[in-house]
């Protein structure tokens, strides 16, 4: 677009322009906060990680227990993200497109993981599945291990990351209404076809965004996982837990090396997220518009 954006126009117009010092004060204030609290810690992670050289860095992340932690983290994400995808989409579909008793209650409950401290979440699972918990005796009898094992970590991770997909989709689906779905049904599409060909294409960017956030949280979750994992090295240690253990052992270089991997994951997530947002705001159709066709001329030749 060749026209000025709203903010630029606002600023160039002497009637609406603020004094120069206001702008610079705000800019300085926010930039220094930004550097102090966001950029500096991020840089320090990489700085500390590479402090003792490349070799130590590589050794720290290829060492047996580190690799096990990476593998476990990937496994947890691999299990919990798809499950959340399915739960999230069905919950959002239910809430946005249907009316039923208790809808408000369900909507509130979806936010529960956001409002409960992750440590409490972990304790909840210990209380239910732990050796002295409600199902503890029964599980022990049948030799099923949940707490201090991978299933417990998966459960805790799912709980913590549950709202991301649903929260992202509900407002989107509500805004889109039921018109297109109704049109599809009237045209003879069955439920699955309606979802696959009409609903899903309309929510795909929001869904991807929710999955990215959910994935980032699944890999980075500390509190809930730390309670249920038992922190057995090489077995139930995820990357964030591994970082903590290394740090507590004064093995700073290794701790920061593994932390740098998580930081890179965060940066990578941010890049994808920005790309998704960009794609979502510029729908595919706009790119397919031949340059010689001016939308205004289409309007004119309507009738």
């Amino acid at each position, binding site marked *: 677009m060749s026209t000025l954006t709203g903010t630029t126009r606002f600023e160039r117009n002497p009637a609406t322009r603020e004094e120069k010092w206001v702008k610079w004060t705000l800019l300085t204030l926010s930039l220094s906060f930004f550097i102090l609290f966001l950029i500096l810690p991020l840089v320090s992670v990489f700085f500390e990680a590479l402090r003792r050289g490349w070799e130590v860095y590589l050794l720290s992340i290829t060492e047996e227990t580190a690799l096990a932690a990476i593998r476990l983290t990937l496994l947890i994400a691999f299990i919990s993200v798809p499950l959340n995808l399915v739960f999230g989409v069905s919950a959002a579909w239910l809430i946005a497109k249907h009316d039923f008793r208790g809808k408000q209650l369900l909507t509130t409950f979806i936010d529960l993981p956001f409002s409960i401290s992750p440590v409490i979440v972990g304790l909840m699972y210990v209380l239910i599945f732990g050796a002295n918990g409600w199902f503890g005796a029964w599980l022990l009898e049948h030799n099923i291990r949940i707490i201090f094992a991978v299933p417990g970590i998966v459960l805790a991770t799912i709980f913590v990351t549950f709202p991301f997909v649903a929260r992202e989709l509900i407002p989107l689906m509500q805004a889109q209404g039921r018109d297109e779905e109704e*049109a599809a049904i*009237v*045209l003879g599409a069955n439920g699955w076809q309606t979802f696959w*060909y009409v609903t899903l294409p309309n929510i795909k960017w929001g869904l991807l965004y929710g999955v990215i956030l959910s994935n980032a949280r699944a890999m980075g979750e500390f509190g809930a996982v730390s309670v249920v994992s038992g922190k057995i090295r090489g077995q139930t240690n995820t990357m964030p837990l591994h970082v903590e253990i290394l740090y507590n052992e004064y093995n700073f270089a290794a701790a920061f090396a593994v932390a740098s991997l998580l930081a890179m994951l965060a940066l990578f997530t941010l890049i994808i997220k920005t790309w998704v947002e960009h794609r979502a705001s510029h729908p*595919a159709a706009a790119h397919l518009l031949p340059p010689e066709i001016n939308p205004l001329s*289409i309007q004119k030749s*309507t*009738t």
Partner: protein
Amino acid sequence: MSIEVRNIHKRFGDFVALNDISLNFEAGQLVALLGPSGCGKTTLLRIIAGLEQADSGLVTLEGEDASDASVRERQVGFVFQHYALFKHMTVFDNVAFGMRMKPRAQRPSKQQIKDKVHELLNLVQLDWLADRYPSQLSGGQRQRIALARALAVEPRVLLLDEPFGALDAKVRKELRRWLRKLHDELHITSIFVTHDQEEALEVADKVVLMDHGRVEQVGTPEEVYNHPATPFVYSFLGSVNLFHGRVEEDGLRVGSHAVPHAQDNFTQGSEVFAFVRPHELQIITDAGQSQGVAAKVTRVLSFGVSARVELEGLEKDSHTTNDQHFEVELTQAQVSELALVAGQIVRLVPSKLKLFDRPGYVPADSASIRGLNASSDKVIGKVL
């Protein structure tokens, strides 16, 4: 295909959307469901389509009870007010959608689908837009594509929910003429919902007037316009002047004024609504005239083929104690002959009056009267 609905009831919470609706739609006709917003017309249409479930009552399609049939089984074409085109699909894919969703055994071949889509796009005269996306089309184009998409599955009946409601006045007019032409070519049983009386009268074979979840009158456009059955229909179709009066020996008494009236099937002393169309009111400037309702000229609008004079009654409405507004339609010649000026006091004498019983002195709660208890100026202003 003929459609019959019988004793349909539908509530949304405390709100009665449809109250015992029974209607018969003959095969091949284009019928308009006409009424103010909230009268239940869209709900009725959606119940026929199967998108909404009636609380009780029957929907019969071609003599078969379809009340429990799913939307897919009913084979209806539905056109939505806001088009509901699939945003992420091209025009071609939108129109092809219904055919592609068929079970494999019934699905036409790729080539057949392609031919059919182009045939339909030619029918709606938009074949050149096949590769565009809905966002690149104007409102009128989108609605025509929506219609082509609905026709692609060869529906037995076409249902249109305020199809031109979101379009501007000029496009509306063109599209409804076009819809009529299309219907004359295809002869598919069609029902369309509208709140625009001009649209309904101009396009439909038959008009169903609805108000507050009830059917007020069913008939051809001529029947409902020339012989309104209820006060609601009279006031909804075209602009109208309303008097509250009492039938007396020498005519009708409106406030302290007497109005000549010949209709004699009302008992003396009964309270009535009296309706007069703007062109049925005469303006008398002669000060010696004793009959007719006294009114003050507020505005003279003398452009167009006929001129309109707006007036304000000298007395408040005897029934509602609101100001009374009147509208008179005259020829340009009459206006220049009368030489009316704003502020002039004149008398209004109706050449024709249509009376409806006003049950008792208390405002009745029957549905047909409800719309009229408000001030009379609400009635005026619907210009046909």
